């Protein structure tokens, strides 16, 4: 796996985690 692909996958993983985090926060606020 070259460096470019590794960075890309890392970026996608970070994006998924961020979306998950903000989704949970949004879900709690929306339900409140």
């Amino acid at each position, binding site marked *: 796996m070259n460096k470019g692909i590794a960075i890309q996958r890392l970026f*996608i993983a970070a*994006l*998924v985690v961020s*979306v*998950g*985090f*903000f*989704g*949970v*926060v*949004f*879900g*709690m*606020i*929306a*339900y*409140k």
Partner: protein
Amino acid sequence: MNKGTARQRLFIVALLVSVSFLSVVFGMVAYQLKLWPFPIFRDAYQATKAWREKLTTRSRYDDTNLFIKVRHTNSGGILRYNKEKAYSGFTLFTSVHAQKALLISMEGQIVHEWHIPFSSIWKNPPHIRFPVSEDFIYWGKAYLYPNGDLIVTIKGLGDTPWGYGLVKMDKDSRIIWKYAEHVHHDVNVGSDGKIYTLIHGFTTEKMPGIKLEPPFLDDSIVVLSADGHELKRLSLSKAFRNSDFSNVLNVLGDIREQWDPWHTNNVDILDESMANQFPFLEKGQVLLSIRNIDTIAVVDMDKERVVWAITGPWHRQHDPDFLSNGNMLIFDNRGHYGKGGKSRIIEFDPMTMEITWQYVGNEQGIFSSVVKGAQQRLPNGNTLITESLQGRIFEVTREKEIVWEFSSPFRAAHDNQLVANVWWGQRFHPDSLTFEFSNLNQNAP
């Protein structure tokens, strides 16, 4: 873009949409079921909110209810005095304009005062990490001994817990002892010299029987020796849990102020002279007023349980008193729905709950203090009423005639139209005070 790359991008987009959808659903479920990570976010939110409130409360005139617009234009002092009908004596009161207790004559002259700033009592208070500024610290209930010694509760507005401690001083305001705990609202002394007061503090563990998520403030009754050493501490949650009145705990989960479910504001001791009038109680038991559940309760400190509890036709009440005729007297802050203000004083029979006497305001003379407040049945049958928010102490006869009226002269801001709350007022017969007054020889102020 080749087919593989397009499929990969579609997958990522689908992944993000799915993750966002599932995480929103999970967030809702976590909120409802209080699952991780909800408690972390809730605590962070509450802490931020409390911290923000502490930082943004800058003016005690505009940002708090310590000073309220005075209802009737006057500059304060004695507004009415019927010498024939009033119970003559000296009136002790604490006012939030300063950390002071004042003793005034029937004519309104200050004959003695007690005063110690909080920073002189505790330079580095061991029980408070970041105290609010002196402007927001004030004295609550004061207990006066015949020799001029005084015990006062101290409060810090805008802080949580707001109980700032208990101090006993002599007639010249020199500290005799101090009790560094979150003492709040009330203090009283039993016939054996023991001191009864209230403390509160955050509980961080879930309590059995209570449908409330910690952290929340739990109140405790504390008994101190005459020299200020703690002898006993009893959690109100425990006292209810051990009793036949444990159903009260179920109510706590439904109340608005979940961070402060009890808000106990009174502790009185049933002494020997009154015990015979209340055959369902025993001497030495302790009478509490629990504001946030509109309940008054009696606790046996030896058995560590509530022995009697009742809610009645009052709302957000203060200062229940045992009376020598077997009735009780209470300051009902928000239970009057007619004209003349929201508050009333009720005398009622605790066995039948029949109201035997009440004082309410009228359109000419509003009576309303939605928080705080106190009353005292005087030996001649009159009642001394502290209408805290209006800085007013007045005495009424059984026929509801006002025979003495004092309006606090401690005014501030907005053309002096804001009056300082009077926390507590109490009348003393001159023979019951044996110390020499400092005779400041001045009208208040």
